[in-house]
């Protein structure tokens, strides 16, 4: 199946790069797929049953995540982007096994090189692996227990895992974590209500980082925050990544944030990946009509700089219902470039790298190579 190809191993990508590309890669530093992938997800599926009636008859399935494959290289940020209902959050949760996937495998590689298939672990085994993963949620007002102090919230993982011998040591570790997220350690005896949204999100980040994870899943970490505070949290996440050598799976609907933070991006539509590749090349020249439409839909501030105005593509209709997916390409009812083949035949996720240049660039579209799509201008004059 083509999906198997959708997990590029780091080695072949490095060999594929033409020499001319190398200086630019070095400049960016991270994001180079190395042989060391923290996460390899293959054919991940999550179907939710639709139950009806008194006997809870099984009448259908919501394909929330369907045959999703990707990898995350050590030290990079992969963004999952898409509209509500596209399965990005479900993917993130399946990867952590916060919910049980219906199929597929999630391979996690620890820092010492040990590989673990997360989908086959028993509960106690899972617990020991989850220590290497952190999770940051969207809403810092509901993700922190209001009845615990900051010390108890951040210290909880140490206590439940019996990793700490005494109170003094616990306080030291928590103080250290608070300092790493730029909060005053003397606040540790306060309760969450005493903090602003941005400060709470810092506390949530400190808790996610408590056990020194390699891999952090951040699910819309700035969407609930005020505009002026969003930038603080984004810069903090970027700084922490380089300080602690973190690998991020960043789930968001905000394309400007994707561009700012991620090395590679995976665009999802109705449970499937429709485009996956390096953020800069996808944003400069998308290959899937949905990506093009998403990029053009983002409102921009008219600063009066020349060339900012882009022609806007307005998609017809709504996102398809994942319990009743259209035949053929799932995007065809809204696609401005639709042809007959799109209505009948489902496109596969194909790597365009051969045609396009160096880096793997996967697209699920029959006409990916023919269409000349519009991206966002990278350097306004």
């Amino acid at each position: 199946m083509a999906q198997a190809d959708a997990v590029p191993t780091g080695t072949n990508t490095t060999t594929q790069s033409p020499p001319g590309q190398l200086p630019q890669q070095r400049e960016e530093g991270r994001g180079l797929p190395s042989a060391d992938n923290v996460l390899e997800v293959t054919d991940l599926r999550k179907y939710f049953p639709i139950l009806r009636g008194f006997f809870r008859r099984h009448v259908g399935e919501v394909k929330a995540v369907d045959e999703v494959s990707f990898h995350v290289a050590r030290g990079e940020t992969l963004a999952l982007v898409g509209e509500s209902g596209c399965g990005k959050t479900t993917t993130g949760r399946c990867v952590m096994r916060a919910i049980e996937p219906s199929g597929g495998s999630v391979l996690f590689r620890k820092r010492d090189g040990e590989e673990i298939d997360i989908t086959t672990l028993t509960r106690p085994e899972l617990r020991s692996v989850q220590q290497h993963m952190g999770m940051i949620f969207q809403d810092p007002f509901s993700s922190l227990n209001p009845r615990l102090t900051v010390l108890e919230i951040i210290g909880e993982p140490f206590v439940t895992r019996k990793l700490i011998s005494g109170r003094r040591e616990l306080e030291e570790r928590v103080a250290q974590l608070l300092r790493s997220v730029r909060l005053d350690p003397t606040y540790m005896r306060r309760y969450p209500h005493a903090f602003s949204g941005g400060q709470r999100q810092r506390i949530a980040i400190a808790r996610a980082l408590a056990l020194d994870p390699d891999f952090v899943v951040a699910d819309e970490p700035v969407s609930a925050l005020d505009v002026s505070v969003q930038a603080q949290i984004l810069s903090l996440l970027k700084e922490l990544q380089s300080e602690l050598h973190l690998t991020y799976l960043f789930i968001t609907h905000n394309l400007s944030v994707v561009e700012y933070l991620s090395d590679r991006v995976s665009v999802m539509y109705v449970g499937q990946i429709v485009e996956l590749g390096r953020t800069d090349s996808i944003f400069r020249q998308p290959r899937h009509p949905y990506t093009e439409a998403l990029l053009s839909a983002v409102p921009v501030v008219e600063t009066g700089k020349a060339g900012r105005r882009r022609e806007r593509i307005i998609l017809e209709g709504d996102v398809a219902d994942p319990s009743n997916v259209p035949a053929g390409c799932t995007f065809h009812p809204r696609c401005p470039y639709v042809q007959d083949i799109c209505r009948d035949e489902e496109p596969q996720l194909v790597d365009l790298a051969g045609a396009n240049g160096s880096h793997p660039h996967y697209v699920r579209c029959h006409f990916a190579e023919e269409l000349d799509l519009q991206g966002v201008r990278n350097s306004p004059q």
Partner: protein
Amino acid sequence: MTQSPLLLSVDNLATHFFSQEGILEAVDGVSFDIHAGEALGIAGESGCGKSVTAQSILRIVPKNGKIVMGEISLFQNGESVDLVQLEDRGQEIRQIRGGEIAMVFQEPMAAFSMVYTIGNQITEVIRLHQDCSQSEARDRAIEMLRRVGMPQPEQTIDAYPFALSGGMRQRAMIAMALSCHPALLIADEPTTAVDVTIQAQVLELMKDLQRDMGMALIVITHDLAVISELCDRVMIMYLGKDVESAPADVIFRDPKHPYTIGLLRSVPELGEGHSQELDPISGSVPSPYRRPAGCPFHPRCPDFIPDVCDVHLPPQIELAGGHSVRCHLYVQD
């Protein structure tokens, strides 16, 4: 600039909330004018008083709140009414609400009642404000739904709100608001709860409707890009004060107030790439119960002048081109 007749004039409006924690000065001395057919954007972060400003205009301020000062004059047919003086449950304001001035909300699920069809609710609005029969009202409702781009309006009119998708519900709410051809539409975060592609649809729709129906528009949002898409003028609010106000093309090209500059710099901009520098405003919005003395922005301001900004409230300073700013940096002499 187009000088169409003045439609609404808000002068020195102050709306305070009285609670056990103290007095919350949600809106404190805000003034602005809207001419017929003009689109004004009110931007600011949570707690800046932008929504309370809208609620004050429609006189739907929650119970513990009170308009303590100011005038809101609505001009219609050559006469002016001060909305502040009206009884908030009286006949007059109820005629204006939904008739002369309509509002769309952020969460369409909360604006519609769950137990009536959307047709039911739209015809109710029409019959309340216009003298017509049930079937005429229904025809007008269908017409309005078609106008906002609802597919198969003859069928969807009998749908319940929960049966519609987010984008369709937003359209239904806009249809309801516009069903009596208001002179002014207030949209409070109209696209915050919907997806990007739906947001693009709704923004396009609002632009078209505003142009075709010649109504004035107040857009309240935290998203400056939405304002840049829709509005002619912008007013930036911070902790109940209007800190800067200017035509849209001026304020985004040449912002003056440090808060406006900070807001614009703290949003990553699409197309600027991976290496763009964000310049976040330090700190966060203080509790409105503990509003800083002097200029409310001074604890976070990079251009803070000691003994000036933390003592005196800056005056409103008029710059060229209809641009006004409330900041000590621009005080002449």
